[in-house]
Every structure is written in structure tokens, then in C-alpha cells.
């Protein structure tokens, strides 16, 4: 590092002979060229070598300079018209030429000059000229430029001067104008006195910029939008206690991190780190949702597991029966549960060599659905009896096939579709953002609430769980409304091959005639109720 260097010329990064230039130095101590580093007071803090300078240099009369002297500034009005001076002398000379013809058609550069010289009113005047010019290119981009290059920096500066909580928000404020309203995006929520003060600052800044923003007659409406709710950097979304041995690898697969985390604990496992008391303690510490997983139909095991866990823990019970029948005696739900209990009918998982991956995936699906339902406005899964079905489809339309399987299970188990939560499978970006697609969903699950949540998307889409669709619903018997909904579903399904109902049955349980609306002739179909495990349309 050297304390002294000779000014040798000015580099023009734009190669256009206009704008601020970079003074370039050399020194006997360095082979490379040097540039000056500025101190906060505008003096030279140091000279720094540069190995390559990607800009042409206009050479000047050599001038000795030292660290601590006023910095050298340079501005080109043309390639042969360079203004170069030190500190205040440069400012005064530049100020004298602010209306130079060379800047007449360069409002953006003029704004830069006005900002350098701290000329607030001239800056606004140049901004107005720039805005009018940009309007000729496109209204949207001109408006964006005005909001992002004038209003936003002004608001940030004013907020930073206010200090305190408002000052802390300043660096990442973004302001956008839409009609009579200004929306201020902030990194953290803005409420109460901070919101009032920040709104006042915004209105004041807009008044100052009234040449650029025509004030609405009723005044500016200020809105705040809180963005970027930062998720917890670490820590699980859910804690799962495995109350009994579900297979040695279930815990391992549950603990894998596929974009969201599950903390796994073991009821019977010795050791303080991952046992029941650690589970209860972690629930209190993290605020994560708690689940206890049990196997079999015995109600006592469920009750015992829930009794020992903290309140609010949801029980997930893997049953051994392939179907859960509301009208059958079901020991699993004989006892009034103190919290939500979700029954998972057997699907061949047990005793058929099925892997822990599938059990873990099912637990994750249920946990994700429970979390999503809590965060959305859907029914909360915090009490009562629920049942979970999942399905894989086959054939040319596996999605539709899976939906048909699920619908069959609804009928077979006599369950009401009221409060049915639907878990879309194999989610892709386009699908995640929209309603679950496909004619089968529209026909069969029109009244369901689809849960669109990244945690569900992850686990339905892993390729391991191979789940095309799932549904989680409270155990409620079918009502007349359900049968009416079923009749409509049948009607919707038959409408796809262009069959239309001819009249309506007096009751949902009655026979219903359908006509084929073909191009050449009319066929007649009579649909009648079939006993499945109740009565209804098939």
C-alpha cells in the first residue's frame, strides 16, 4: 500500500464520454494502476491497485496526490470536455454547469448529478422529465421506475432518519402506488404507532413529490403489506411419538427431512433423548404439533398413550381391519377420545411385508393435513373421530382411478362427506397453485376442501409413498344431504358420456332415469339404488 501517487488520467467506464469518470493514478511502488478509496469525509483514504481496468483512459497532466488530501472527482460533458477538481471546488464547478446542453437530453444522469449536489428540487424536476420520457416507452415501466427509483429511496431515507423501529424497517421498504393508495411492503409486520408514524412519513414524502405524483382529492391511502414471514430456520413442524413397535425403520423414514421436519420419539425406548418425557418436553418447548402413533384396535392402548402425553396430541391409529364401518361396533372409538383420534384402515400394510416407508409416509400425510387444516380456515382436527384413506390409481388415468377408489370407500364405509379434506397427490407446480384438476375430482369431490400445502405436496410426491390421493374426514353418518350429494355426483359422472337425467326422483333413494343425448338416437338407462353398506346410488 502506498500513501502517495500521481494522478495520470480519468477512466470512462461507459465509453460514451459523458458522466462521472474514475480518476486513475500510478506510483513507483506499483506496476499496476491505482484508484483512490474514499473516506467518509471525502478525503483519500488509500490507493488501491487494479490489475485490469475495463475502461478507456483520458490522460491528464500528472498531479501528485497523497492520502488524506481531498479526493479528486471528474465528470465528462463530452470526451474532450472533462471537469476535474478536488472536493468542494468540483461540486461548485459541476453545480455551475447543471443546465449544460450536454445534459439536456439525459434526465436520468441529471438526477444523479442533482443527487450528488444535494439539489432536492432540481432532482424532482429532472425526475418529472425522466418520467414523461419513460411514459413514451410504456406506462407500466415508467410507473415502476418512478416507484422504485424515486419514491422508495426517498421513503427509505425518511424512515431511516426517523430512527427507532421505523428506522429498522427502512432498508427494505418498497413502496408502490396504485391509484389513490400507496402500498408499503415491509419485512416485518407494521402495527399500531409505528404504522401511524410510517404512514405519516409516506404522506409527507408524497406531498414533497407532488410534481411527480398528482395528489388524490381525498388524500393518499396508505396500506401496509407484511412480506416474507421467515420460517423457523430449524426445528420440526411436527413431533411424532411411536407408542409401539411399528417396524424398525419407521422412525428412520419419518425423521428424513424432505423439506419439512418431523421429530421422532419412542415410547418404550430407554434413554432420555428420545423417550416419552423428551417428547412431552419438546412439545412445550417448540410449540410443534404432537402426534402419537399406535397400532391395532385396542382402545386401552390408545387411551394409555394419550393419557401419558401432553394435551392436544392427536392419535394416529393404524387399524388391522380393511374397512371402518360406522354401523359396526368399533372398539377403537368406543371410548370418548379426549383429543382427536385418526383411524387408518388397513391397506395391506401389515402382515404383507409392507415397508416402514409407507407407514412413515402415511403418518407424514396425516400430520401435514392436520397442520394445513389448522393453518387454513378448514375444519380443525383437534377433537373427535376421524378416518384417513389413501389410494393409488392405475390405468390410463391413475388420478381418476384413485379418486374412484376413494369414493368407493366413502360409500362402503357409510361416511358423510361433510368436512371432507382432500389431499391431492403427485403435485406439480402448476397443479399446486390451482384447484385439483380433472373431471373425476369435479364430479366426485365437488364439496370437498382440497388442502394445498407444501408439506402435503412433498410427501405425496416423494415417489416412495406413491400416493395419488388421500382424504381425511370426520366419522359422521350419512345424512339425506349426503345422499343428495351422491345423486348429484352420479349425475355429474354420467354427464361425461353425455347422459342426462330425465326428471328427478322424489327421494334421493329412488330410481332415476337417464337418457343418452346422442347425435342420432336416444337410449334409456335406469339407475337404481344398490345396497352396499347402506343404501344409495351406485
Amino acid at each position: 500500500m502506498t500513501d502517495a501517487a500521481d494522478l495520470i488520467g480519468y477512466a470512462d467506464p461507459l465509453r460514451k464520454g459523458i458522466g462521472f469518470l474514475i480518476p486513475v493514478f500510478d506510483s513507483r511502488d506499483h506496476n499496476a494502476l491505482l484508484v483512490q478509496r474514499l473516506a467518509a469525509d471525502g478525503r483519500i483514504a488509500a490507493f488501491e491497485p487494479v490489475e485490469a481496468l475495463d475502461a478507456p483512459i483520458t490522460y491528464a497532466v500528472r498531479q501528485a496526490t497523497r492520502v488524506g488530501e481531498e479526493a479528486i472527482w471528474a465528470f465528462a460533458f463530452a470526451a474532450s470536455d472533462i471537469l476535474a477538481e478536488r472536493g468542494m471546488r468540483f461540486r461548485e464547478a459541476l453545480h455551475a454547469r447543471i443546465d449544460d446542453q450536454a445534459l439536456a437530453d439525459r434526465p436520468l444522469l441529471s438526477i444523479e448529478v442533482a443527487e450528488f449536489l444535494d439539489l432536492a428540487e432540481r432532482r424532482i424536476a429532472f425526475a418529472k422529465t425522466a418520467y414523461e420520457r419513460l411514459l413514451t416507452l410504456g406506462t407500466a415501466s415508467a410507473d415502476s421506475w418512478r416507484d422504485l427509483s424515486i419514491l422508495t429511496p426517498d421513503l427509505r431515507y425518511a424512515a431511516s432518519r426517523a430512527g427507532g423501529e421505523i428506522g429498522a424497517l427502512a432498508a427494505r421498504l418498497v413502496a408502490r402506488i396504485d391509484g389513490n393508495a400507496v402500498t408499503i411492503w415491509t419485512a416485518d409486520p407494521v402495527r399500531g404507532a409505528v404504522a401511524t408514524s410510517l404512514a405519516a412519513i409516506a404522506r409527507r414524502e408524497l406531498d414533497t413529490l407532488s410534481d411527480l405524483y398528482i395528489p388524490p382529492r381525498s388524500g393518499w391511502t396508505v396500506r401496509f403489506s407484511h412480506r416474507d414471514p421467515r420460517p423457523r430456520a430449524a426445528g420440526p413442524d411436527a413431533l411424532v411419538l411411536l407408542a409401539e413397535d411399528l417396524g424398525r425403520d419407521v422412525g428412520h423414514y419419518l425423521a428424513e427431512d424432505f423439506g419439512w421436519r418431523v421429530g421422532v420419539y419412542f415410547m418404550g425406548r430407554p434413554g432420555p433423548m428420545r423417550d416419552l418425557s423428551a417428547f412431552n418436553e419438546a412439545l412445550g418447548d417448540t410449540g410443534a404439533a404432537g402426534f402419537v402413533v399406535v397400532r391395532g384396535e385396542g382402545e386401552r392402548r390408545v387411551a394409555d398413550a394419550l393419557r401419558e402425553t401432553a394435551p392436544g396430541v392427536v392419535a394416529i391409529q393404524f387399524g388391522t381391519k380393511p374397512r371402518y364401518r360406522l354401523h359396526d361396533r368399533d372398539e377403537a372409538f368406543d371410548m370418548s377420545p379426549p383429543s382427536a383420534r385418526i383411524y387408518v384402515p388397513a391397506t395391506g400394510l401389515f402382515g404383507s411385508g409392507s415397508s416402514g416407508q409407507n407407514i412413515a409416509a402415511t403418518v407424514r400425510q396425516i400430520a401435514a393435513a392436520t397442520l394445513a387444516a389448522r393453518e387454513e380456515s378448514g375444519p380443525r382436527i383437534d377433537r373427535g373421530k376421524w378416518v384417513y384413506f389413501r389410494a393409488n390409481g392405475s390405468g390410463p388415468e391413475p388420478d381418476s382411478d384413485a379418486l374412484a377408489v376413494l369414493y368407493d370407500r366413502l360409500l362402503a364405509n357409510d361416511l358423510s362427506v361433510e368436512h371432507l379434506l382432500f389431499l391431492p397427490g403427485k403435485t406439480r407446480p402448476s397443479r399446486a397453485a390451482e384447484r385439483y384438476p380433472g373431471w373425476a375430482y369435479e364430479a366426485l369431490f365437488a364439496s370437498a376442501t382440497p388442502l394445498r400445502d407444501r408439506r402435503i405436496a412433498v410427501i405425496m410426491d416423494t415417489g416412495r409413498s406413491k400416493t395419488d390421493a388421500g382424504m381425511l374426514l370426520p366419522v359422521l353418518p350419512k345424512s339425506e344431504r349426503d345422499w343428495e350429494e351422491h345423486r348429484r355426483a352420479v349425475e355429474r359422472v354420467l354427464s361425461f358420456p353425455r347422459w342426462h337425467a330425465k326428471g328427478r326422483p322424489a327421494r334421493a333413494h329412488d330410481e332415476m332415469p337417464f337418457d343418452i343425448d346422442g347425435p342420432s338416437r336416444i337410449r334409456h338407462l335406469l339407475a337404481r339404488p344398490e345396497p352396499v353398506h347402506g343404501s344409495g346410488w351406485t
Partner: protein
Amino acid sequence: LRLIDYLMATAPTPKPLNLVHCATVGQGFDILDRGQLRPEERSEYDGMDLLFLFYGRPAYKPAAGVGASGILDVAPIALVLDPVLLQAAVRVVPFDSGGFARYEALLGPGLARTDFELSGDPSLPLRLVRAFYQTNRQYFDQEPVTREKDIPLSGRAARAYARLIADPAIRDMDDRAGTIELQFSAAIPLASALQAIVAPASMLDDPEVIEALARCPDAVPLPYKTYGRFEPLSFANTLYERVDTFLESRGGFA
């Protein structure tokens, strides 16, 4: 567990970020004059013609091994492009593919560049962000949240990448280590794709540039000040601040 398998098990972020191309001001004039970004011959890909863009970040810091004041590229520009271009990418790499030699030691033995090269699936950049950073904001700020130990032992490439982006030394020197690269085999016309251009004020009201921007109706000019800045790093910070503001205004971090 391949990196692609790990990513496909991760949900994408809800919103894609814009694509970014950084260049010198001289290159910027040429690009605007041509009206398109063109693929160029890439020796590291057997002479294929490819165009490299970055996902959501104006990765600009000089490469490792070059001091902060080594190269004074005093007027960088950033072209901010429509995220819809993701559909046209032919390959996704979680870091600057040209910097693999610099990253190799941190990634660990037995892993080749091909272990990190992903198909052009448009969801992959969004999945990468979710898998390692959780949110677009944390990706932009290079604050990874997924640690190496959070990833199964079988996911060697994913673990290596988590290790690379968590390394503070390389992040300070070379912000391309954690910036997702997108490769394209066809030219990208600016008229439909350019959404913003970050450049020195004196460049943005140059008549040639005004004429070029008139052909790009959606492009927002985002000028930055050139005076008082003599360090490459300060230009990098300026580019990030301007692109950050633009992405924020478009809801990229919502």
C-alpha cells in the same frame, strides 16, 4: 439417493424468481443492440452452444483467487428476465458450473460435476430453493437453513451441496457457489423477456439504449449511481439492492 431424487421429494417454492444475466456495460450495449441473449460455444460442455443465466440473483462478485480490487469492472449491468423462461432451460446446475474446479475441494471426493447437473425441469430451481433455503428471501440473501446433517447419508450430492453453500469463506469470495445456474440452448429475445435492466444512469438515457428499451415494453429501467464507488464489491452490493427492490415489488419474496 441422487440429488434429483432428493429434490423431487421436496415441494417447490410457491413463486418463481426472475432470471438474471450480469454483464459489463460494454457487453450490455451489444446485447441491447442485438435484441437478444445468444448461446455461446462452451468448451466445458464439448463445444455446445449454451447460454447461462442465474436464478433470482445477480451473482457478480469476482471469482475466488481474484482479490477484491483485482479487476475493476466499474460499471456492471444486470438484465432481469421473465421467469417464464424457466420452461425453456435445458439444464439446471445448483452453482456456477464454470466454478466447479473452485468448489470441488469443498464438495468432497468422488463427486463429479455431472452429479450436480439436473435436467431442465422448470420446477427444479424452485425445489432447490425450498430444499436448501426454504424461502426465496433466504436464497437471495444466501442464508441456507438445511444443514448437511439434516440430509440422509445416502444423499451424498445433496449433503455436499449443503456443505458448500454453508461455507462462509467461499460465500464471501464467490457468490456464484450458491447461485443456481440455468442453461439454455436457444437465443432469448429481449423484447418479450426483459423485465428490468439495472445499469448506470448515464447508460440508461443513452439514445441507443432508449431505442432498444422501446422494443422491450415491459422493461423497467433501474439506474444506479456511479460516483463515489471504486470497489467491485460496492457495485455488487448496488446490483443486489436494485434487483432485490425489483423482486420485492413483484412479490418475489412474498
